[in-house]
Structure formats: C-alpha cells, structure tokens
C-alpha cells in the first residue's frame, strides 16, 4: 500500500500535468479575480471579454479565474503572466480596459503602465 506522502506526490504530479494539458505553458496566462467582491465590481463582464476573445481565435492564452488578492479599491484585478517576466497586475479593469489589454498587451506585448498596480 502506498504511503500518504507517495499518494500526494503522485496526485500533485497528475494535477500539474492536467493543468499543463489545459495549456498552462501557453505564452500568456491571464487570471481574472472572481471573488464576490470582484464580481460585484464587475469582473464577470471582464471574464466574458477574455472568454469571447479566446472563442474568436485569441490563441496561446491560458485563462483562469482566481480568488481575491485583497486590493479592494482596485478591483476588478487581472494578472497577465509570462514566463521569466514580472507578472503584470492590472487594476480597475472594466470591459473596455479588458479589450485594450487584449489588443495591446496580449497581442502586441505592450504593457499598459498606467493601469498597473504598483
């Protein structure tokens, strides 16, 4: 019988594989805050913008929801993470900002500094 430590090791490896299978190592990972405070601030609409963009052919993006990171006054928040770059954290993201983030940051690699959380 397997030791609990072996079981958890196996489970963790499987979980990581599943995450990778979902495209975790796509070029860009996008996290949208989806705790109830963020949802109240409008993050569902933001999420919908990203989902729609992916549906319409935005490739190489791993989209995930996340919990709340505690930045109440800057919600909704969105993180754009690329390997070996400082993750970019956007605050006060609304539908329009989300579209701009897709157009400028995700598609063209231009970070929109004035919207980032410093």
């Amino acid at each position: 019988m397997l030791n609990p430590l072996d079981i958890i090791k196996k489970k963790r490896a499987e979980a990581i594989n599943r995450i990778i299978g979902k495209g975790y190592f796509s070029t860009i990972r996008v996290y949208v805050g989806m705790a109830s405070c963020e949802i109240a601030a409008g993050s569902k609409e933001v999420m919908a913008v990203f989902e729609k963009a992916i549906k319409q052919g935005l490739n190489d993006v791993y989209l995930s929801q996340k919990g709340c990171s505690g930045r109440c006054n800057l919600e909704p928040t969105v993180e754009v993470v690329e390997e070996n770059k400082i993750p970019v954290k956007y605050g006060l993201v609304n539908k329009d900002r989300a579209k701009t983030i897709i157009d400028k940051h995700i598609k063209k690699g231009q970070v929109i500094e004035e919207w980032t959380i410093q």
Partner: protein
Amino acid sequence: MDHSVTPQYKIILCWGSSCQKLSSKSILDRIHQKIDELKMGNNVDIILSGCLGMCSKGPILIINPGYYIYGKITPEIVGEIIEKHINQNKATAAYLIEEDHLFNRFYRIFGDVKFYGRQMRIALRNCGIIDPESIDDYLSVRGYESLAKSLALFTPNQVINEIKASGLRGRGGAGFPTGYKWELTAQEKSSEKFIICNADEGDPGAFMDRNAIESDPHTIIEGMIIGAYAVGAQNGIIYTRAEYPLAIDRLHIAINQAKEHGFLGNNILGTNFSFNIEIRQGAGAFICGEETALIHSLEGKRGVPRTRPPYPATKGLFNKPTVVNNVETWANIPVIIQEGAAWFSSIGTKNSKGTKVFAVAGSVINTGLVEVPMGTTLKEIIFDICGGLPDNKTLKAVQIGGPSGGCLTKDHLDIQVDYESFAEIGTIMGSGGMIVIDNKSCMVKLARFFLEFSQSQSCGKCTPCREGTKRMLEILERITTGNGKPEDIQKLLRLGNTIKKTALCGLGKSAPNPVISTITHFRNEYEEHINEKKCATNDCSALIVYEINDACTGCSACIRICPTKAISGIKKNKHQINQNLCIKCGDCFDICAFKGITRR
C-alpha cells in the same frame, strides 16, 4: 509612459527585524551605491519588504523577475550579486537559496508591488493566485501535502505538539492558544468529537473569512482535516453565513473534490482515519459567531451563548468534545505542519506568533486585505502598506476590532500589532477590522455607530448587554443630538465598566469598548458635545446650525431647494432660516453660489 524606460528589475530587500539586525541597512546603502555606479537607476526598483519568513538565512534579497532568492548576503558581497544579476544576467549561485515556502508563489506574482511587498501572506498565501474552484491548482501549490505529512509522519499527539510549539493563537479575536485547545479535546474520552470552522463573520467591514473561503477553500478544509486527525474527530462542520453564497458554493465544490480525491471520507489517503465535513448556514445573527451560540444554532436552538465552563473543547456540539476555530486559524494549520513549528514561531512577537490579516478600510488610499507578521506597527500598515490617507487628510484615530474593539490615536501608531499590546491599550485584536479615521469624523458618532450595532445584535439573554447597552446608546443618542448632560460621561463609564465585567459572553463584554476608548482618548469631543452642544467635525447633523449671512444676494435658490420650506425671504433681500423647520440636510449650503450660508 513608455514601457522601455520603466524598471525591468525589482529588488526586494527583507526589512524584517531579524534581517535589519543583520545589517540590512548597510546592505541597502550598498545597493543604492552600486546601482548609481552602474547607472541603472531607471531600470531597477528597490522595495523593502516585511519579514519574508526566512530569518535563519537572512538577510534576504530577492530579485524579480524570476523570484531569485539570495540569502546570507553581506554589504561586501551584495554589489557583486547585483552587478552580475542585473548587468550580466547571471545569478550568483553561491548565495542563491532554494526556499520553496508555501507562500513563495504569491510573491513570484505580487512580490514587486509595494502593497504586498511589506506583507507576509501565510493564511492568504493562495488567495489571488489559484483558481479556487480547481483542486488541481491547489495540489499544484503543494496542497494537501501537510495532510499527507501529518498522516504519514506524525501521531495525533505530535500534530498537537507541533501546533502548540508553533505558538498559534485563535485568530477569531480572543487569542486562545490553538494547540492547547486541541489538546483539551484530544484528552476527552468520547466516541464522538466534532471540528467546527467558525465562518460566521459579522463585524461591520470585516471580510477576511469570506475572502479566504472564496479564494482558497481547500486550505481551510485541509486545516480542518489535520485538526480532526489530531483530536480524533469524525465529523466537521463549517458554519458560515447564508449571506456568503459564493463562499458556500466554492466550499461545496471543494468538499466534493476533496472527497473524490480521498482527502475526505473513509480511509483518508489509505490510512484508517476517516473524516467528513458538512456546511451549515447561519441566518445572519452576529451573536452566532460566539462559539457557544454557534453550537446552539447548530443544534437547532436559538443562537444564544451559554456560560462557560464547560468549554466546547470538553462539552460542545451535542455535548461532545468540539474544537471551534475560525477560518484564519484553520488556514494557518497546513503551513505550520509544512514549514514546521520552529519556522512559524520565528515570525511575530514574544507571545503572538505568525501573521494577522486585517481588513483595512476608511480614510486610507489602499483599502484592502493586509496580512502582516505580528509585531508590525500600525504606522507600517497604514502608511507603508496602505499608502496613508488620501487628499492630505490627517489621521485622527484607528478603530480596531470592529464593534468589539477600541479606538487608538495617532500616538499609538508605533504600537506593534499583537494580542498583548492591543489588550494593554484597551482594545482587542478582534477578527481584524481596521478602520482609519481622519479628522473629518466625529468620535462620539463613531462610538454611537458601533454601540448601535452591538445593541441591535445583542441576543437579549444577559441583563448587562441587553439593558446596559441600550441605556448607553440612549445616553450617546442624547449627547449627539445636543441633549447631553454633564454627568453623562461618568454614567457611560460606570455602565461600560459594569457591562465589561459582568456580561455573559464576549460580545457583551466587549460592546462598551468603542465608547470607553473614545472617552479615554477623545474626552474633549464628548465634553464639547455636552457642554457647548457642538460637534467640531459637523458630523452630528443634529448639532449643526445653518444660518444666512450677509453674503446672501437674495437669489432664492435656497428657498427653492429647501425640502421643508424652512427658508423664506423677499427676492434680492437677505433670506432667513426657520430653525424649527430646518432638518439640517445641508442642501441650501451646497446650492448657495455666494457662500451666503454659514454652517456651525
């Protein structure tokens, strides 16, 4: 702003007390010097962080991107490290440390943000970085490893000893040592025991628990399973508010996922330990956050507290030994098991170990959830992390612990956050509400607000709380409406002290705190309200008087807007306000274009 000229590297220097002792300060000087030398000032940001929890390997320096952690650095060597890393893009392997703390991932994403850099996220380590509805995400950040570790390597007793040694104390407010609580339950001989997670968060403005559950439900579940293993419980209950639908949804999802993976149910991870968790929704009574009232509510009874002893640890739910801990406490458990008691107890102050989450709100630039090591000063939280007060307002007071806590003044800003120092100055840690108050707020009105809450949420069982807070509220109401009497302050203190010493439960005992502490620190405001019938902040509307001054042009804009027809006058002549009709809404004051109305 053009991205190409913004800093590319973020250097995080641990500014915890341990690292500071180990010459962080001279290291910082050297870093600045080196960056000037390299003329890289535009490409590098330097951030001072709170304790990063790696004290034994301090001083710690982290360079982003990549979250490279350098340990045991010295002023002599730091220049070389910086030069190699930043100028030549090469890490200095000799000083690089492989610290895979559970919370490192958070800082890999957020470490460069000032708001997070000074924090230390243990309970909230996964909040905002994993998908709360995905157990895969949780497993990928070493989720349930602590559970496996407990089951594989520790006896239940060893788990308890580990928690005891960690110095973890209840985060619900009272700060009872968690390990000792568990030990009491473990020692009880009973065929049935319960584990309860108290998620009945009710303080106005507090949302730490909701956030923790919504963002990382598995951590709480894992903590509870470890607790159940330690004390020998078969069933666990998460008691949460019905007003937290998303938290409840996510808990359901997490519990089902945990069952599928064999973390809950029979024979957990192949051992003969079995445990189940169910969710119960409270109906929104604040008092049900008190553990005995919570237990009554779970038993289907009216949610009122009962006298203790016996404590729930020996006689709890259905008279069975029961461990009740709050959400934040449970969230700390997996980290303690994973990182070890010695590590955990290295964070914090002498008697308060680990971190504490605060919900910072009020007159502050960055409102939000802040998790800091015990021992952090209020100044650091309010000014360094939360960015201070907006619009150049000045800080007047900090209200800590919600309706159970007290007000501190700017003289207390250097107080270190821990159970003892809060108790010393007449407030409590509480569950972590922190409201920053600027000089536009009236402290009497604030005290009245909190007392109104406590009074409306009193269960009505014991006399001091039921009747006493009502009388205190009546006195405060008369003070804030200009009917205060000179003896009222004395009466408030007398009643407050009696309630504190005689009420049945924690809610009652702490209900007078906001009043007593505001009297202690802002007695002059009370006296002004009572003796001069005046509220200097114009916050108490009943004490405001609007009068028309000579700047009045007789334009009659105020006459048109006044909802009670209190203003009269002939056009182009000075108008008058009938004080008997005025409801002090302030509309005339706002609409007057000529500053013709005086507010006093």
